[in-house]
């Protein structure tokens, strides 16, 4: 019967469409996703392989030895590891609270008309190339910081705390690097804080308001605790960026590779800056292998931190579904 034929055709059509479409789509997305895994594996393998010579000669102990002098065959990487961690921590300590407060202002306190322009400026900060930050740091910020902050600081507080003392000659230092890195990671932390605070359900704020909380108490006791995991995730992403930042660090860190600076106001070196600056001179296998080893260490730190951040962001996004009111 005609009607039966019609139905059969429709049935077969649906059968065909559902069979191949989804399988094809599934296959494409799966292979793209697996490609990322492959990429990480390849990069990891290359770095692991390339650093074999250095790993066999020095092992992890190189990371805890002072003094980098390729000509004499000394490859103590402690100044670079120390400089990387210290400059990133300075950056995080400055940009963390600053960024969270920007996020709080943008979501909780900012008048509607100011929101878009302010967000635009925060995102603009993220769009500036790092070499521009480096240039600004070298020619403007570092000299200013030396004359108005570093020298007075070293002459007063520095007499008691060696970490802020020493003889300040150059403008370039771990401290200046940390501050510039802070400016660079600030938009990341501010934007993520803004986004995770914005998804805090309104009923959580109302719960606090209804027991007579002030705006500040609502933010402090309901909003920030709820968004805590996501905010930490944002800080971790910022930290990851600070750890790996090369160009700006190279330009303003000072290039002091041979020893760990006693003071934060003295020049130092970071792992990324070390690799970039030595690459043209790495003429023997050991030197080259050592640089790849540094890359391996940096890669490991960044990967671990990013993994933690991903987990935290995922965890915070998984909260209960919120609603406002009828």
């Amino acid at each position, binding site marked *: 019967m005609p009607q039966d034929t019609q139905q059969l055709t429709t049935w077969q059509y649906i059968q065909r469409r559902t069979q191949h479409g989804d399988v094809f789509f599934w296959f494409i997305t799966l292979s793209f996703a697996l490609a990322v895994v492959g990429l990480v594996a390849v990069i990891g393998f290359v770095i692991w392989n390339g650093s074999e010579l250095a790993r066999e000669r020095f092992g992890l102990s190189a990371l805890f030895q002072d003094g980098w002098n390729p000509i004499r065959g000394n490859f103590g990487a402690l100044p670079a590891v120390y400089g990387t961690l210290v400059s990133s921590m300075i950056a995080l300590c400055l940009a963390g609270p600053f960024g969270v407060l920007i996020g709080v202002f943008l979501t909780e306190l900012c008048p*509607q008309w100011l929101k878009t322009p302010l967000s635009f400026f925060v995102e603009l900060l993220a769009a500036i190339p790092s070499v521009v930050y480096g240039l600004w740091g070298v020619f403007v910020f570092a000299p200013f910081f030396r004359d108005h902050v570093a020298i007075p600081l070293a002459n007063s507080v520095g007499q008691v705390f060696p970490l802020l003392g020493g003889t300040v000659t150059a403008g370039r230092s771990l401290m200046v690097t940390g501050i510039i890195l802070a400016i660079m990671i600030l938009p990341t932390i501010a934007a993520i804080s803004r986004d995770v605070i914005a998804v805090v*359900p309104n*009923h*959580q704020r*109302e*719960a*606090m*308001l*209804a*027991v*007579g*909380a*002030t705006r500040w*108490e609502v933010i402090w*006791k*309901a909003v920030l*605790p*709820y968004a*805590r995991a996501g905010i930490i995730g944002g800080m971790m992403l910022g930290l990851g960026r600070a750890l790996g930042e090369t160009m700006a660090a190279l330009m303003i860190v000072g290039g002091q590779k041979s020893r760990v600076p006693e003071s934060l106001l003295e020049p130092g070196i970071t792992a990324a800056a070390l690799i970039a600056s030595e690459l043209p001179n790495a003429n023997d296998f050991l030197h080259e292998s050592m640089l790849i080893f540094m890359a391996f260490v940096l890669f490991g730190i960044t990967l671990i931190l990013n993994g933690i951040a991903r987990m935290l962001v995922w965890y915070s996004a998984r*909260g*209960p579904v*919120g*609603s406002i*009111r*009828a």
Partner: protein
Amino acid sequence: MSHANQNEHPNITLKDLKPFYGSFQAVYPVNSIFKARSITAIIGPSGCGKSTVLRCINRMHEVVPGARVEGQVLLGDQDVYSHTIKPQAVRRRIGMVFQQPNPLRQLSIFENVAVGLRLDGMSKADVNVRVEESLRSAALWDEVKDKLNHSGLALSGGQQQRLCIARAIALRPSVLLFDEPCSALDPISTLKIEELLVELKQQFTIVIVTHNMQQAARISDHTLVFLVERINDVHRGVLVEEGETSQIFTSPQDERTTDYISGRVG
């Protein structure tokens, strides 16, 4: 009623109350009295402004950007919109329970009840006493006494809602406002909350917004019926009738109330 009683169990009086969103007046002026130690129900279809009116009473309306209020809300004989009174003080005397059970996600069951007390810096011993007392009043103590440090989210929806009631009671308010407290709950949890409300009316002036007419009929003493009035495409809530609940449901005076209650509109 003596004057002292009046202070402890105050009526709520709405005088020419007009809630605004920006320049838009959402509800026609409301005049009414919600009696102490009784349950007043506010019923009406979606968009009739019943929640808005409720939120004006404890100054939660103005939390929405651009929202403001004209007219008066009296707690006893005190205007809660007086310039000498802070909204935070009003909200501590007039507690509120919301549609969605909203325990604070990061806090334990105990801390959820204690959160308002802690804002005042109440001593630890006093907090302990008050939390237990509030959980008992909210008929939740026996169910949670062994897991006070667990997350509030581990409780069922009905238990969460009673936890929110305990949080409001802990501040010893004079008035409790309920904004569709059962709309997210199953029938058994709903029944428990209703029984609890009838219990609580001995101590509090209770106002409940509900879209459930049977609920209003079951528990309330006094009922206000709001409807939406559409004039020239402008939708505005209007109080069409109020009275004893039994009278509203058996012999409403206004034809629109009859239509609404019998299900012909709304």
